[in-house]
């Protein structure tokens, strides 16, 4: 278990501001944030590479704020792997075990075991410069896991890989975590990684933790406009609550009314609707969705296998390319946008 209590630190243009977090034993914890948010600085501070200006870091209940890195029992994997270039794969993996003065026999066994679990025994005698990105990442992971760390810190471990390798390694990370149960803190700016890997997610912005929760909760119910924008919530609307009957709020926005599940009874609010929660139809539907807004298509933006359809009423909907083709949607076409009251997240301004 790892606990951060009000950790603050400034280093160059990066800073951490009163970070308080609690990562449970065996948890896969994601720190999600944009570039420059201080994610790497946070990991490096936990690892003991920087001393916080204030606050405490506890690892398994022991105050490690001022302990040198070698005494913390932490495995660290950087984005660009940072394998020791002058050592073979086997020497890289055994580095930490040798530094700990383990017997040769034990070192050999542990190295063989961790190499086998990551499927890299064939790389044993190779030098890092001869390995692919995916292989290097596996070796870096093996090196960190070989010391049986109390905590594994992963600094954007998948961001330098091609999409196919990234997907494979993402599954690998999940599998390794499930089999070893090592407490893991993984920082990333990739929302897919956060959703698919994290038991919980903390959103770090401008050196501050602005939201912590289960991935679905954070993605569906962002705490503020900045978080929502970063998490890809395309529909951020300002409005005023006109009525609330039994927890169902009626919000007047610019141009249309929205029904949402919210305890807020009055006042100015911000509404968040994820674009994938909006259904488009060329004709009126009989639907359980409480909201239906008519609009005209103004623009269609391709996003890989999906497209983002912009409407003149300000809404944006994410649909598949196939749906786009089947509905014959193009700029100028009239459509109906449906979304459920439960898909609308309301926060007071």
């Amino acid at each position, binding site marked *: 278990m790892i606990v951060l209590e009000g950790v603050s630190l400034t280093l160059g243009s990066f800073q951490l501001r009163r970070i308080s977090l609690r990562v449970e034993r065996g948890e896969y914890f994601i720190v999600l944030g944009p570039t420059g948010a201080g994610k790497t600085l946070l990991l490096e501070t936990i690892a003991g590479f920087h001393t916080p200006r204030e606050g405490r870091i506890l690892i398994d209940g022991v105050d490690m704020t001022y302990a040198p890195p070698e005494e913390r029992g932490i495995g660290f994997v950087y984005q660009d792997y940072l394998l020791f270039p002058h050592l073979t794969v086997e020497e890289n993996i055994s580095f930490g075990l040798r530094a700990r003065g383990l017997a040769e026999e034990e070192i050999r066994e542990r190295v063989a075991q961790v190499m086998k679990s990551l499927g890299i025994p064939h790389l044993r005698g190779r*030098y890092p410069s001869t390995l692919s990105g995916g292989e290097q990442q596996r070796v870096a992971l093996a*090196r960190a896991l070989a010391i049986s760390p109390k905590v594994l810190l992963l600094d954007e471990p998948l961001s330098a890989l091609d999409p196919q390798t990234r997907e494979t390694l993402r599954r690998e990370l999940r599998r390794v975590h499930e089999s070893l149960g090592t407490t893991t803190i993984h920082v990333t700016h990739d929302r897919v990684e956060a959703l698919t890997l994290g038991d919980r997610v903390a959103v770090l912005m401008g050196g501050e933790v602005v939201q912590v929760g289960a991935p679905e909760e954070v993605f569906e119910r962002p705490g503020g406009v900045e978080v929502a924008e970063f998490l890809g919530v395309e529909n951020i609307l300002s409005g005023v609550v006109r009525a609330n009957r039994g927890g169902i709020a009626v919000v007047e926005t610019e141009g249309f009314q929205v029904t949402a599940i919210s305890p807020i009874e009055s006042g100015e609010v911000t509404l968040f609707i994820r674009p994938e929660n909006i259904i488009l139809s060329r004709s009126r539907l009989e639907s359980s969705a409480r909201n239906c807004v008519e609009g005209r298509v103004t623009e269609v933006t391709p996003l890989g296998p999906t497209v983002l359809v912009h409407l003149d009423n300000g809404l944006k909907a994410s649909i598949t390319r196939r749906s786009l083709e089947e509905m014959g949607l193009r700029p100028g076409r009239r459509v109906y946008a449906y979304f459920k009251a439960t898909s609308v997240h309301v926060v007071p301004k």
Partner: protein
Amino acid sequence: MRGLDLLRRYPLSVLFAAVGSLLLLFTVVVLFNMVFRQVVLRPEGLLEAVRDPTVIRSIGLTMYASLMATLIAVSLGTPLAYLLARHRFPGKSLAEALVDVPVVIPHSVAGIALYALFMRHGAVGRAFSRLGVVFEDSLWGVVVAMLFVSAPFYINAAREGFRGVDPRLERVARSLGAGQWTTFYRVTLPLSLRSLISGAVMSWARGISEFGAIIFLAYYPMVAPTLIYYRFTIHGLTGSQPVAVLLILLCLAIFLALRLYTRPRRGR
């Protein structure tokens, strides 16, 4: 690619290559002229120098003294270079400027300054003479003068070598359980070794070539540059050139051998 195509595609590079070659040519012509004249036109002078015990002793002394100066520079300069490469501290800019001072001051000035301090009645010379170490006209005087002028070459090369090692590699090593010593010994040092060796070779070569600072403090025992100067003043080119050529050939051979030994290897 034909010459004209090359010029059309990379006009700037071609121009730079032409201009840069002039400087290389200058160095080659100066040295080649002397070596060629001696080795091909007057080989008997060179053979005579090889057989001359004074010359051999002098060259041996030069190399030995410079090696000692380099070893001192490596011992004291490595920690300094590491600090300059890795840490920020008050007075760091001043320390970096001080490292380079011996490179920018005239060596006769360095010689006088060293003499004032290390002569028998100088502050340091007097203290050491009580311990039986005399700098004036002794091997130690030669070593001190060589150290003064050559140490910056090692310190600067070592500092750049340490800077070239990603500090995050050291952090990873620490996180894996290695203390600062082990990290330095097993990660930083092997990864910067080529720069350190290269710096030591440059420092050693610089020590061998020193003349200005040495003659003020230790005209005797005569190192090779002093002997060459002495013979030039007495016998002109005929007496000095063979010694100079022999020194050049020996230095080049050692320099090339070290370069070959420290060249990058494949697969790493």
